[in-house]
């Protein structure tokens, strides 16, 4: 018989998992932004996250105030976005998407190497002033840090949603996502838009990097968070922000529940692959994710 404590424990695990999932969504949103507008799965998103977090923390360590460091890092990420558009995307225009994907693998190596060559390889502590103490809400112990992260994730989604639907450049983004040639035909400047999108993804990387960095410490392993975001994308579909959020929730919750209830039977450590298996099972039913656009093929 399940007693009351077990039920409570179950919900605690569930909520913890959902909140952890939103941390994955935060990373996944950066991918979606780029995928939607340029059709590239940007593997370097994790490296950008590492780069942003390392730059921010190093600036703070040199004595820059929080806000200045944030703005400066954002400016650097914009520069990075424009540089990537100029040196990687533009020469590869009109090449198969898989070529662009392989290029972003190379890009990930370049950014990771450069970030650590510039700022060193030691682990930096990052304190955002948010406590990681568990709070009791309706009888459940929940980390307040997780709640803040969840709020930031939802804030980001709302801001991006408003940006896409309410601003001119957002409208241009959607036009490009819809049909590149048509967008080009009505006079939208694709290179400019791509650079802007990469800069926006840089901003998302910065926000996600700060939250993840505060949790894990700013270090090389931050770039490996991509591997956590990818199953979320598989599940939610590469081109849907809503999918990134819902996918994150599902992956986070099922991963935590599996770790607690299934892990002991197989010796633990299953979090490295469990999310992929969940995502693959979903994909067998829906090959382009929960909210992904169906691919219509023409010969």
């Amino acid at each position: 018989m399940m007693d009351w404590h077990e039920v409570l424990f179950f919900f605690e695990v569930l909520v913890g998992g959902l909140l952890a999932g939103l941390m994955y969504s935060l990373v996944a949103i950066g991918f979606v932004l780029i995928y939607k507008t340029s059709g590239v799965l940007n593997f370097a998103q994790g490296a950008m996250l590492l780069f942003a977090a390392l730059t921010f923390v190093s600036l703070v360590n040199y004595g820059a105030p929080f806000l200045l460091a944030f703005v400066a890092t954002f400016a650097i990420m914009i520069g990075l976005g424009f540089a990537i558009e100029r040196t990687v995307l533009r020469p590869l225009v009109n090449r198969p998407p898989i070529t662009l994907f392989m290029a972003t693998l190379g890009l990930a190596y370049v950014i990771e190497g450069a970030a650590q060559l510039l700022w060193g390889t030691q682990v930096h502590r990052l304190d955002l002033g948010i406590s990681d103490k568990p709070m009791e809400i309706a009888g459940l112990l929940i980390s307040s840090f997780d709640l803040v992260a969840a709020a930031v994730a939802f804030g980001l989604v709302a801001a991006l949603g408003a940006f896409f639907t309410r601003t001119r450049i957002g409208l241009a983004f959607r036009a490009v996502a819809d049909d590149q040639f048509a967008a080009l035909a009505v006079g939208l400047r694709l290179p400019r838009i791509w650079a802007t999108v990469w800069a926006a993804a840089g901003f998302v990387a910065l926000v996600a990097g700060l939250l993840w960095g505060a949790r894990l410490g700013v270090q090389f392993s931050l770039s490996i968070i991509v591997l956590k975001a990818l199953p979320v994308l598989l599940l939610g579909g590469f081109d849907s922000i809503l999918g990134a959020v819902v996918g994150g929730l599902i992956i986070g919750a099922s991963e935590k529940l599996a770790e607690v209830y299934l892990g002991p039977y197989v010796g633990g450590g299953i979090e490295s692959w469990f999310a992929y298996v969940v995502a693959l099972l979903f994909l067998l039913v829906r090959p382009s994710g929960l909210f992904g656009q169906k691919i219509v093929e023409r010969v």
Partner: protein
Amino acid sequence: MTTILALPETSRRSLPRPSAALIWLTLVLAVAYVAVPLFASRYVIEALLLPFLALSLAAVGLNLLTGYAGQLSLGSAAFMAVGAFAAYNFNLRLGFLPLPVSFVLAGLTAALVGVVFGLPSLRLRGFYLAVSTLAAQFFVQWALSKFGWFSNNNPSGVISVPRLQLAGFSLDTPTGRYLFSLTIVTLLSLFVWRLTRSASGRAFLAVRDGETAARAIGIPVPQTKLLAFAVSSFVIGVAGALWAFTYLRTVEPAGFNLDRSFQILFMVIIGGLATIRGAFLGAAFIVIFPLLLARAGAFLFGGIFDSGVLDMTQRIVIGALVILFLIAEPRGLAALLDRIGARLSATAARLAGSSSPSPRS
């Protein structure tokens, strides 16, 4: 039915003329079998040639899947690990089997695992498939370190291979291991080369260049994809066994991590997609480049260029080269070499005063 397909230029040009190709192949093999054992030092064999051979074979395997059949895989290292651990276990538990048989069984094990993880390719395309191959990477690494049976109950999943023996002869010298590895790599590469020129090989190209079109002309797309996964994993599995048995001798699951998978993919990209030679060129580059960089760095910057800086510089340069090759020469070092060769022979012909124009200028 598939013969009506025009071969894409990559495969037609990968080896210019059969006769010339045969001459080159004989030449390379003669050097590899005669000159190297006679003149190469222990260091060159153990630190350069043995990893080069194993990695080349892995790149040949991945090239079959990615270059020819167009299915991008990010989990090659997992199949190397399966091959290495399977060969170890066949050798340990069925000790009466000759070593080559253990290797073939190890390859078949890897092929089986490859087919299982290739199943998503029947439903998924492009990025969705590439990402799903990561499942193989993480699952295999986890399983090998979690279940003691695979490593004969070593607490950290480390295996140490026995001395190499073949039909009673000990091959436990650097030269012996080198010749053993060289023979396997040569045979399997020739096999893959033949395969790419067969009806199945043309079916791979058709699936790569247009899945729907391939289906329309009657190519069984699911079987073709699974065949590509199976053969590719077989080759990569044997490469993993070579890596463990001839090069490192002691391996652990963590050695077959995602970085290794990327390394093999980068060899294929830098060497040239859809050429067998490219796999070897790419592997040679990836093996030699870090050594050159270390020398150059120490020479130019002295003490500042420590191992950490070296590691980062290496990442940057390799990543940049991958991008550069994708942009400027998608057919890799193999095509670059072709062009240089053509240029040289044209110059040679001109210098010799031949009035006939070069056939391939």
